[in-house]
């Protein structure tokens, strides 16, 4: 009996901790467009799916692709989305319906750096609705992480204490309840029409970019990339790989490195039997595309909304061509 009472106290303690934890998650983790994306793939069916990084999020307009190809398109690219995350996103999407085409936006930097611990790196897991894929994702990713990442998701947002009031106000609003994008409309950047519309300010641009480093390869990234390829093959999905354009200035400065990366991934994709299109290769033409630094936010290649639409139109044409 004594032991039973103690066991009950332990359970009570865990419950109290869980309630406090839930409250902190709710109050500190800001509303994110990842929630909208998750809701969309949970409730809607897509023909074309884009996976990848922030370059894809900023550079691929699903609306333009959809208009040109006539295929319902979803952009699931996110900053900090490593191939491991992309793999589970793809699996989760396929629960609702299997797309015809998956395009992976490849940033070589994600294949030679460790998966980071940035504030949003665990966002996909946090926002993914409970499902067997989420459990699989937990075992595939969360298990190796600091236990605070999965037990206390607010850990990465603990410095949001000062903004808790605003976060709560947004979460109690209609936009949040209806998965609306209004809270993400800012002068410099806005999440609209399924991608991040960038409005770069003129002036000096950040030069930091993660260059390809073959000696530093992240084996997990390659392993999960291959998992994506074989998953698509198994499901009969057409799998394509693209690298989005970077500013001319970046190519001039780091041309050799971009060349090495292109050579490596071209060979690698060839071995996997996957079509790879790198828009930074010499001779690649994008109709009406401004490849000067003015049209980008940085050297890394986060393009402006206008250029993203121009680029997406070209990519849609290329997609149609590859179908033929």
């Amino acid at each position: 009996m004594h032991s039973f009472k103690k066991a009950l106290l332990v359970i009570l303690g865990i419950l109290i901790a869980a309630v406090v934890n839930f409250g902190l998650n709710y109050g500190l983790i800001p509303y994110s467009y990842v929630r909208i994306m998750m809701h969309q793939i949970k409730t809607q069916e897509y023909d074309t799916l884009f996976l990848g990084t922030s370059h894809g999020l900023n550079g691929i307009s699903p609306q333009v692709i959809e208009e040109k190809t006539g295929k319902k398109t979803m952009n699931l690219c996110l900053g900090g989305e490593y191939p491991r995350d992309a793999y589970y996103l793809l699996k989760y999407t396929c629960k609702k319906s299997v797309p015809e085409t998956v395009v992976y936006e490849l940033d070589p930097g994600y294949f030679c750096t460790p998966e980071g611990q940035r504030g949003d790196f665990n966002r996909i897991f946090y926002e993914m609705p409970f499902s067997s894929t989420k459990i699989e994702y937990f075992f595939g990713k969360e298990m190796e992480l600091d236990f605070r990442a999965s037990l206390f998701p607010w850990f990465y947002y603990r410095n949001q204490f000062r903004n808790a009031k605003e976060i709560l106000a947004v979460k109690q609003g209609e936009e949040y309840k209806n998965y609306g994008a209004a809270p993400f409309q800012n002068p410099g950047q806005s999440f609209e029409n399924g991608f991040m519309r960038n409005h770069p300010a003129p002036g000096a641009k950040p030069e930091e970019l993660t260059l390809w480093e073959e000696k530093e390869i992240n084996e997990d990234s390659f392993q999960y990339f291959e998992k994506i390829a074989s998953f698509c093959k198994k499901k009969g999905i057409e799998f394509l790989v693209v690298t989005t354009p970077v500013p001319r200035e970046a190519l001039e400065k780091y041309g050799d490195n971009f060349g090495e990366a292109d050579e490596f991934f071209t060979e690698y994709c060839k071995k996997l039997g996957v079509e790879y299109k790198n828009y930074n290769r010499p001779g690649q033409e994008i109709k009406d595309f401004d490849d000067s630094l003015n049209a980008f936010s940085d050297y890394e290649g986060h393009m402006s909304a206008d250029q993203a639409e121009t680029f997406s139109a070209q990519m849609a044409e290329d997609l149609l061509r590859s179908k033929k």
Partner: protein
Amino acid sequence: MSLISMEFLLFVILAVAGYYWIPQKYQWIWLLAFSYIYYTSGGIRVTCFLVFTTLTSWGAGVWMEKISETIKDKRNAKRTKRQILTAALVLNFGVLGVLKYTNFAIDTANSLFGAEFDRLQLLLPLGISFYTFQSMGYILDVYWGRVKAEHHLFRFALFVSFFPQILQGPIGRYHSLSQQLYASHTFSWNPIQQGFLRILWGYFKKMVIADNAVIFVDAIFEHPDLYNGLGIVGVLAYSIQLYCDFSGGMDVVIGIAELFGIHLDENFKRPYFAVSITDFWHRWHITLGTWMKDYVFYPVSLSGWMKSFSKFAKKTCGKQTGRTLPICLANLIVFLVVGVWHGAAWKFIIYGLYNGLIIAFSGLMAPSYRKWKTALHITDNSTAFHLFQMFRTFLLVNISWFFDRAEDVKTAFLMMRNTLTHFNLGQILEPGIEIGEASGTTYTLVAIGVILAGCLLLFVVSVLEEQGKNLAEIFVRQHWLVKGAVYLLLILLLPALGQPSGEAGGFIYAQF
């Protein structure tokens, strides 16, 4: 599997739940299975080294005991046992030496002779220094007849591989650890509560204090030119980081063992309250210190050549100095080994020798110190003198940390010099100079506040413990509401004030 990972947490929960659920006679097998699962998660190839050490140590122990029983001629038996012991020591320390120090030897040869030997890609099994020392301690104990050899291979395998302690100690002794590992344990709430509290306290020290301090440490030690006025801040932050990281890791390890009803040896006893460097080493990494004392210091001190040296020293330097000199020499050898154990770099050798020299010098100067104290009317009970000794020791320890943390010996000296000549605390807040950034938290006064508040709490706890209070037992006697509140507070402080830990669990000593 790092000590702060989710998988480790679940692994421990599963291990503890199963341990008390299965019949007690199988508990040690359960522990062995989990220990090997844990170690194998780091790779099969590294496990081969663990198996090698286990087999050679076990075989040597059993063989030596058999020799004692079967060979009647004591001299003959001793000679054969010595050969077996030597073979086991050479094999195991040889593996450790080759894996850990080959590249150091290559680098040294390259820089000394201008050679261009390529570094080798060698595996370095995690915890190899710890389990090798633990196993070799056992073999030496069997050789000296202090313990009976373990005949059951799998039981012995558990002694070598017990999972909470294998990566960063404490270095266990066979006589105190083995019986606990093989004994049956009945579930009881008290060790669970105490163990859980100890684990949380360890994580608090690591995640809240050490991981906040590490950003300052890394910024200052990795950019000594940029932060040339902050050498003292860097070394103080490092003294906090190192202690909280290592002792925090020990708290986690000891707490987990406690959940199984197993008491591991303590590795820390408030080291910064030490009144001398000798005292410091009685309080810091205690199990390494006692290992060195038992298996290096005494054998060296009592060896034939040391006795000859002692006679020579007494003859040439007088009785008093002649008696002290061999002890000083033995201490120097011990600390040279301690330095080498810490890492394959000259800075660690200097670090070890620095400690050894201070202890040796203190030994030689002891009679003079006594005279000075009498002349100055200083009594050992004086609080002021006690505080002075603590401050002096802390200062000396911090000087050694420069060698331990700086990139190399040259940088260590440069930083020490800058500390005296370029001291500028204002650099910490100068615009344009950033002291790191971690997950969106720019390091500002808030972060310094967290470190100071954490240290204050640690100080209060340490003072109470130094006064002989057993806080864990006091805690267990509290009302459940108080206990629950303490648990909840500690749990929430880990994400609220802690910083993300680096790779490999971020524990410094898990890399040995």
